[in-house]
């Protein structure tokens, strides 16, 4: 499995080199994409200085945590998002005849993947950590990678669920787009601004709040977090991520059996 994964990255790098111009364009897109999100935050908080006690500095850090988890997800698991396309054009059948777990086979499909967004995210996270005045101690340095990994797994789980739905409804582009948008919107602001029902949903059903809100509450030493949970629950995000991914994988297996039953 490791050998396959190594080859996957070898080909990714070769492809990026083959298409240098495209690679630069996509890197520019990553800058615009995140840049416009941060600019929106800045414009809003330029007019309204406080959002439930969070100012622009806090929110810039909140965005940094999400951005890093998201970039890590896109770097490692980009292929999952292409499943609907593979199902539609029949390429998915080719994956089914590989002697690999199908989800793994999807993940190791080489593409034009390069960790440009991840590098950007790490730089941005570093800057906002300083800008937001987060205390950088041993505990922070130890916890941050786990928190980011947790966020990555949460996003992977969501994408696996969307990909599985493609086994039933071949064209799920809109759903995929919406889920990504919802994830962005829900992770952009402190969840305290939402009604209780939405907060519960973001904590226990689709746990986006564990991608950045709860960890940021902890790292920023906010006195309280939404739903009255102690801020330290933010450190549970890897556990939440693994659990959610387990559920998503079970759903994937169920969908795969169905796919093999009826084709598409």
């Amino acid at each position, binding site marked *: 499995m490791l*050998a*396959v994964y*190594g*080859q*996957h990255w*070898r*080909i990714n790098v*070769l*492809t990026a080199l*083959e*298409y240098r111009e495209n690679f630069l364009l996509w890197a520019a897109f990553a800058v615009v994409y995140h840049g416009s999100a941060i600019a929106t935050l800045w414009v809003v908080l330029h007019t309204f200085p406080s959002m439930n006690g969070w100012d622009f500095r806090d929110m810039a850090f909140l965005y940094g945590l999400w951005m890093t988890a998201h970039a890590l997800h896109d770097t490692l698991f980009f292929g999952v998002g292409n499943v609907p396309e593979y199902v539609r054009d*029949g*390429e998915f*059948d*080719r994956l*089914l*005849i*590989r*002697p*690999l*777990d*199908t989800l793994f*086979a999807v993940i*190791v499909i*080489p593409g034009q993947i390069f960790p440009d967004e991840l590098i950007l995210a790490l730089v941005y996270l570093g800057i906002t950590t300083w800008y937001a005045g987060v205390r950088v101690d041993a505990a922070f340095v130890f916890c941050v990678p786990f928190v980011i990994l947790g966020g990555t797994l949460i996003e992977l789980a969501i994408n696996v669920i969307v990909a599985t739905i493609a086994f039933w409804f071949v064209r799920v582009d809109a759903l995929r787009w919406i889920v990504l948008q919802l994830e962005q919107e829900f992770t952009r602001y402190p969840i305290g601004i939402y009604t209780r029902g939405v907060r519960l949903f973001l904590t226990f059903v689709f746990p986006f709040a564990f991608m950045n809100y709860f960890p940021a509450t902890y790292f920023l030493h906010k006195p309280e977090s939404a739903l009255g949970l102690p801020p330290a629950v933010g450190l549970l995000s890897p556990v939440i991520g693994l659990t959610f991914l387990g559920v998503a994988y079970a759903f994937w297996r169920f969908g795969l*059996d169905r796919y*093999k*039953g*009826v*084709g598409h």
Partner: protein
Amino acid sequence: MTIIETVDLKKVFRSVVRRPGLSGAFAALFSREFEEKVAVENVNFSLQEGEIVGYLGPNGAGKSTTIKMLTGILVPTSGVVRVAGIVPSEHRQQNGQNIGVVFGQRSQLYWDLPLRESFELLRAIYDVPRDRFAQNLRHFSDILDLDRFMGTPVRQLSLGERMRGDFAAAMLHDPKIVFLDEPTIGLDVVAKEAIREFIATMNRERGTTVVLTTHDLADVERLTRRIILIDEGTVIYDGLLARLREEYGTHRILVVTLAENYPDVEVEGAQPNGRDGNIVRLRFNRHEVAAETLIRRVLDAYRITDISIEEPDIDSIVRRIYTEGYNALPAALPI
């Protein structure tokens, strides 16, 4: 040893009925009607290790549904499939290790990169030992002449070169069985011959079992002795190609080159089947009149410079079966 076996294989699909037009399209947003379609039924056959079989049928006959069940992509509605001792859909990954697949219309090579890189990835996926990988690659390069374009990005290869690459890719992990779906479609004569030679070599040297689906009957004639014909989801013939020709291709054509320009050529027991200058074609049923008798009658009546007999090609036989159906086969023909 039996390597592929199917017993009473059946697959039923449910599909949406679409009504035509704009209103139909809008209506389909809210309610859908379904219909069930039997894709294949009562498919029974078995293959011995090392056999090459042509799996033939018109479009929509159920060929690719059968292949998908043999490769583990689809689960049968009922019936049994066993490939190299395992049930493909239950042990998909092991089955993947045992089989190789080439789709003529869909490449498994990486479009943007040289062939070599795709092979490296496949080596990792199928866990081929390095020395075996090197040995296979060298061998395939010799037969398929891959060295010339090993370093060229796949998107710049001609179709023929790409198909050679695809064949090598499918055979790298020494599969016991290969499924070839329209492997020579769109290729020129030279590339077709190279591919056919490769298939024949693999079968001869390694005993690879080959299941070939194709519309190009020249592939079949060149490679296989046994064919399975499928139409409307069921097997209508399973047996030797030669016997099909023997029993079903009852007509022969006698081609005569005349020494003089006779205005009308008529021979008892044969029907005129076209004339081109001094070359006359006469069609006859070999069960009604022996070729020897017919030739003697021609020689008695005309002066000729050349004479030959044309056998019917498999193409016309199979076309006749598709159009006239299995019932038109002579009753004597055992399945």
